[in-house]
């Protein structure tokens, strides 16, 4: 079994009209055993930047702390807020620094840039980025999630429609993956604020 599949995770980030959404499952497992059902993998870095970290749980927690540290340092030195593009670059750098002994995480970054336009990026465990304008997925159920997103996605969705699409895509993907599931959290980010909701899904 791959080390990236030890704990289990499923994260989707999707862009809408002047808004962006990011959703994750909440299972923490140790291979087949489920340890906790409230382990969230999406973290709010600021009102306009969310990061989803899928992979080995210990590195998810370590990276969460590291990212907060680097963000604080940036904002103290530069006296301005990080933008999603720069944040994504910082994350990419942090990962490549450990090129020959990497953190076992595959992150996605979702946010709104200076003009409140959606920003999405995904990365592999050594920081190779991909920038898209529709959706990014990561975790143990990527095959399922790509299929669901490709089918359900439409351009320029309003926040409510984005929430529906994102939730349906995630839930359907989780249900066919043994390692992810046991609850889900969805965040919809608009220029006016963030709405977070818990999804009711199959607890198995």
């Amino acid at each position: 079994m791959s080390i990236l599949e030890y704990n289990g995770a499923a994260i989707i980030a999707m862009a809408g009209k002047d808004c962006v959404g990011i959703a994750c499952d909440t299972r923490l497992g140790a291979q087949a055993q489920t340890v906790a059902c409230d382990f969230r993998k999406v973290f709010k870095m600021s009102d306009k930047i969310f990061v989803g970290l899928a992979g080995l749980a210990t590195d998810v927690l370590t990276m969460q702390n590291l990212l907060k540290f680097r963000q604080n340092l940036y904002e103290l030195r530069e006296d301005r807020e990080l933008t999603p593009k720069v944040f994504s670059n910082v994350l990419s750098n942090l990962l490549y620094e450990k090129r020959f002994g990497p953190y076992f995480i595959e992150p996605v970054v979702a946010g709104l840039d200076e003009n409140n336009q959606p920003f999405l990026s995904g990365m592999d465990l050594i920081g190779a980025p991909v920038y898209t304008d529709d959706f990014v997925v990561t975790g143990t159920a990527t095959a399922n999630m790509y299929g669901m997103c490709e089918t359900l996605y439409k351009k320029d969705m309003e926040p409510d429609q984005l929430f529906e699409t994102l939730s349906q895509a995630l839930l359907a993907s989780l249900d066919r993956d043994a390692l992810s599931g046991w609850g889900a959290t969805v965040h919809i980010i608009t220029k006016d604020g963030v709405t977070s909701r818990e999804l009711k899904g199959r607890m198995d």
Partner: protein
Amino acid sequence: MDTVFGVEYEGGVILAADQSNARSILTYQSNLDKITKLSPSSALAVSGPNADLVNFSEYISKNLAIYQLSNDGLQLSTHAQANYCRGELATALRKGPYQVNCLLGGYDASSGKGSLYWMDYFAALSKVNYGCQGYASSFCLSIMDRDWKEGLDQDQAVAIVDKCIKELSLRFLMNQPNFIIKVIDKDGVKTLKFGSDPADT
């Protein structure tokens, strides 16, 4: 091979561990205490090779003691202790890992509640209502899933622990004759019962 589990209840946490120290076909000792007191209101139940078990728990408890001495008697909350523990495990992971899976239980006077933290040797951390490490999980998690609910009192929590021990003695392959059970509540860390006195040399 070690059995370590814990249950949180209203106003405290119970930690239980088997007392055998064994390797391959030999049992070295059957009165080992695998639950170390970290602070006046928290304890760490550890499972793993004896060297790492002892080294890690002593390292953490002494570092927490020095924190208290250096900071004018300030005691860290259970959440802070758990995160400190995780940090040490995470740093050691890529240098020289401690192969310890642990459960940290503590009581916070400020909230009047107990909290239990599950940590594996990769340094993944999660706050749980009840948890097991090792093979025990295959037997005990389902019992706890069924019987645990919000607002248990100490007797009910001890009953769950006893039920788990009974199940293990009935169905678990390894012979674990002795268990030590400790309670962490507003009165501190106390040994509730043991199969064999750890103080006997």
